[in-house]
């Protein structure tokens, strides 16, 4: 059982409302009176990896807990976690903070090409498509780096696109990841300040991940993507793996990550030349 280091022990003894019971995650919202409405606990199985503010269980345990929540608590009810968490003997606290890393330029560019090839080969239009947001990603990333991401752009990005974490939000989480990887904390701070007023315009789950991203905390799948980029992994395989995360979220996030890394390198090379 792995637990995000930021999760308080009290999470396991406090009641929660069930928000969502899925195959890849169970999402609970704190029912404590003093809790903010956005306080979520994400329970995930090993194959999904640990999420910010979450607990990651062995496959068997996850499905036992999931079945328990489904059978004893209707989705709108509340659940106490003390019963099942007490059965897990081994805990590992995992720090999900994304540290600054060196990413080879050649890897970024190769991944940028692979992402572009992937998205163009699947380009569709309409309300179910993430493509319009993905196409805007380089421009959003450039603006984020220049600290001039305007309200107009944010209003059509935050909460935009398919999925329970809309594509626009996933792109922004990817951009935050890229800024943290390159240690651009001033840009992180400015982008966070710009985004906060727009958080009510998206879903509960997305707000959770966006807030974590502002603080530099990301799910293990994001860490894996960064590892691959840093290790000069096969770009097509990276995209393939990203595409297995949700219907569109993994690729949306990778698009944001790669866009901001590429934009940052371009910016810095221009500065160096100057």
């Amino acid at each position, binding site marked *: 059982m*792995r637990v995000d280091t930021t999760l308080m022990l009290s999470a396991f003894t406090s009641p929660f409302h069930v*928000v*969502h*019971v*899925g*195959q*890849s*995650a169970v*999402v609970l919202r704190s029912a404590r009176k003093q809790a903010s409405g956005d306080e979520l606990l994400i329970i995930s199985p*090993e*194959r999904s*990896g640990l999420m910010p503010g979450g607990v990651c269980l062995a496959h068997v345990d996850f499905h036992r807990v*999931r079945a328990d929540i*489904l059978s004893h608590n209707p*989705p709108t009810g509340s659940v106490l976690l003390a019963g099942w968490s007490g059965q897990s003997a*081994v805990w*590992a606290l995992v720090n999900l903070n994304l540290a600054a890393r060196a990413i080879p330029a050649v890897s970024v560019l190769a991944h940028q090409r692979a992402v572009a090839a992937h998205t163009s080969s699947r380009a569709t239009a*309409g*309300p*179910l498509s993430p493509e*319009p947001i993905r196409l805007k990603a380089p421009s959003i990333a450039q603006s984020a780096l220049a600290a001039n991401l305007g309200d107009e752009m944010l*209003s*059509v*990005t*935050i*909460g*935009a*696109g*398919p*999925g*329970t*974490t*809309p594509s*626009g939000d996933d792109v922004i989480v990817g951009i935050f990841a890229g800024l943290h990887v390159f240690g651009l904390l001033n840009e992180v701070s400015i982008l966070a300040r710009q985004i906060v007023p727009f958080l*009510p*315009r*998206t*879903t*509960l*789950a997305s707000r959770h991940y966006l807030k974590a991203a502002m603080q530099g905390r990301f799910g293990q799948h994001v*860490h*894996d993507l960064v*590892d*691959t980029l*840093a*290790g*000069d*992994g*096969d770009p097509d*395989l*990276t995209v393939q*793996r990203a595409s297995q995360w*949700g*219907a*569109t*979220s993994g690729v949306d996030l990778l698009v944001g990550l790669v866009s901001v890394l590429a934009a940052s390198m371009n910016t810095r090379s221009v500065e160096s030349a100057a």
Partner: protein
Amino acid sequence: MNSPKTTVLSSRVLHHFYRDSVALMAIASATEKREGVIRVGAVMATPANRGILADSDMLPPDLNAESDDLVFVVRAESEDTATEALDAAEAGLTAVETSGAIEDQRPGTVDEGIHAALAGDRESPANLAAISIAGTYAPIVAERAIRNGLHILCFSDNVAVEDEVRLKKLAVAGGVLFMGPDCGTAIIDGIPLGFANVVKQGKVGMVAASGTGAQEVSRLLDLAGVGVSQLIGVGGRDLSADVGGIMTGFALDLLERDEGSEAIVVVSKPPSTDVATALISRLEGIASHGKPVVACFLGMDDADPDSVTPGVVVRGTLEGGAIATARLAGHELAVTDLDPIEPVPGRVLGLFTGGTLASEAKIILKRAGVDCEILDLGDDQYTAGRPHPMIDPEARADKIIEAGADSSVGIILLDVVLGHGASRDPATPVAEAVMVARSEAESVGRRLEFVASVCGTAADPQGIERQRTILRDAGVILAATNASAVRFVAAQQAGTHAS
């Protein structure tokens, strides 16, 4: 573009409704294919998504929904069609709520399955069957699949050797591969089957009668920048006297003709002497036609083409096989051994999950004259009634903790195998157990060291650097290859005895 005036737009709002996005998209896509349905939207009702719906002429004028509500919109040719589509979508989403999955229409028999697979996609029908059932029944299923022209990957073990010989002859006659039984690793046309690392595609063809042996060689080739064209597993018994290398011979025929394979490496645990002699002769024939060959036969003495075996490089370790193959492909694989540490009193215990990695360790330590106990925890005696330790690393963790209390043990050798099919995070249980075992040993004033290698690539799902970091943080001494880890241990033991 506006829709024709004859269409109707209907919607349904599902309040505070979260579903796995994959299921949501699948249901939306299925709804869009219904007769009479023109377009579907299924999005969270955020302000931005309302804007997108409006731009697509899909925003219901009286929509009453918040950001955490799911809105399902259908534009259809009639009101009835739209309502039926929305009812079906909502029912599908509710089914996902309780079961988490949409029921598939599954074949009821093996024959139905084979015929469904062959008929499913006429342009690109299935051409390979993976069999992972009780060994008693595997030959029946395999024979039906072979007779239908399918290649076989037989993961099942406990298949009688007589059945193996019969099925392999049948497969060769039908021009298909029978990879197995007990075949855990293959990469065919870039598609990994069973346990396989994510390696580059390239020009080295591999034939392997050993699972983790194939993984170690392929991942080291990848490290050297050399890709694999095909990795054909043949099952651990193929080079035994009973089976006589039937499938290895057929696989070599295929690779010899394969223009995508410019060099060949054969990987095996120690083969039967007669079979090895015949096979080396066959490999010499391939080499004489211009396709260089490496025979990586564990335990055999190294030999180069200009001496005993003209045209064939023979290597007795996986690392040696990988280095020689990389060189044939024009790449160098440099392995830097670890610096020695203070000698550690006590015997060497190997706790391996990979059978061939365990064999390689035994051979190197035996040659060095080191007294050791090497356990292959993937062997049947340890896996009865539980998953293979590459899938479930907890069983080995228990063994590591047990060893912490064994005062005769000074060094523990480990392998950590990554890739498709392996545990998502094999390093963490090892690291946790190492810390417990070391603490136990140190509590009685005993020193205990752990030495390991990670069989993986940068592109593996587990991320090799993340896994190595977990082990390193737990104080595990990490070598670049399994052979290098074993050499380090052998050198330590020599130092211990000298001191």
